[in-house]
């Protein structure tokens, strides 16, 4: 599961995870989604971009 907060800065990025996944599934551009959700720093952006769900 995605960590609750960004490992570097502590922003609760997991709150945006579902929305991000949904919009990625609809083939939206990752940059546009992150910008619109207000996730500005690259530490937070990599949390969503690079997450691999291994827990099922």
């Amino acid at each position, binding site marked *: *599961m995605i960590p*609750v*907060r960004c490992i570097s*800065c*502590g922003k609760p990025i*997991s*709150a945006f*995870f579902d929305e991000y996944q949904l919009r990625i599934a609809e083939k939206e551009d990752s940059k546009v989604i992150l910008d619109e959700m207000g996730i500005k*720093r690259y530490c937070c952006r990599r949390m969503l971009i690079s997450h691999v769900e291994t827990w099922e």
Partner: protein
Amino acid sequence: MMVLEDLEVNGEEGSKMEIELKEKNENEIVFIIRNAEVPFVNAIRRIAMMEIPKIAIEDVNIVKNDSTMFDEVLAHRLGLTPLFSNLEVIEGLVMSEDCDCDDHCPRCSVSLTLNKTGPENKEDIKVVYSKDLSSTDSKIKPVYDTIPLLKLKKDQDVELEAVAKLGFGKNHAKWIPTTVCSYKQYPKITFNEDLEVDYECAEACPRGILKTDKRSKKIKVNNIENCSMCKSCVRASENDYINVGYEKNNFIFRLETDGSMDPEEVLLKACDVLSEKAEKFITFCKGGKV
């Protein structure tokens, strides 16, 4: 014994500190402090991170957890979930160390419960979110509803009680109200007009702060506050045409919270804590009891 006199504290000699607000929204403020000194600004920063009381889940009593997630991991996730802790919301709550109860009581804690059962179908997976936490206090609840806590399959249940307590950031990161809390000195970009204009340096800026203006044979600076003082421009320049420095006593301060408190509130509280500490120091130096 030396007796200290009350001194007026100023930044640079003879100049008063000034503050200018730059940006402000729900979770973030950016402001400029002029005529201050590093120790003072840094004290504010450290107190804002470490010594502001905030509420977070501290103890979790797990009655049942059938999911594949370990109890410890689940408790950790609950702890990191931000809860509303505005000053008006946590008013009246006391630190659990200062409370006279044995473990926890309504005076020093708020309890939240989580009760969920898995999906009906064998193939389905049910995600339990932070909104499923029900609190005994209507105001102290998770800031975000959409934080995934754990996943349940058919015939798996989770049942727990989480006890949220006040704490300080210096004891655990879950009690830090800020995410970004930082300052930088105000950038200062100067050009050596005696030398030939070097347009190369403008190209090198990764933030687009330097713009070449061929007509007036100058390099223009726009939005200097965004300059990270990386000095890429200085390195790219063949001669010493450009120089990047900073203004010693001016600062750009950025404070972002995790949503649990308003940024102004964090700042105000930090100032209160600092003046309290200074007050103690003065009393001590004058030979009084602290």
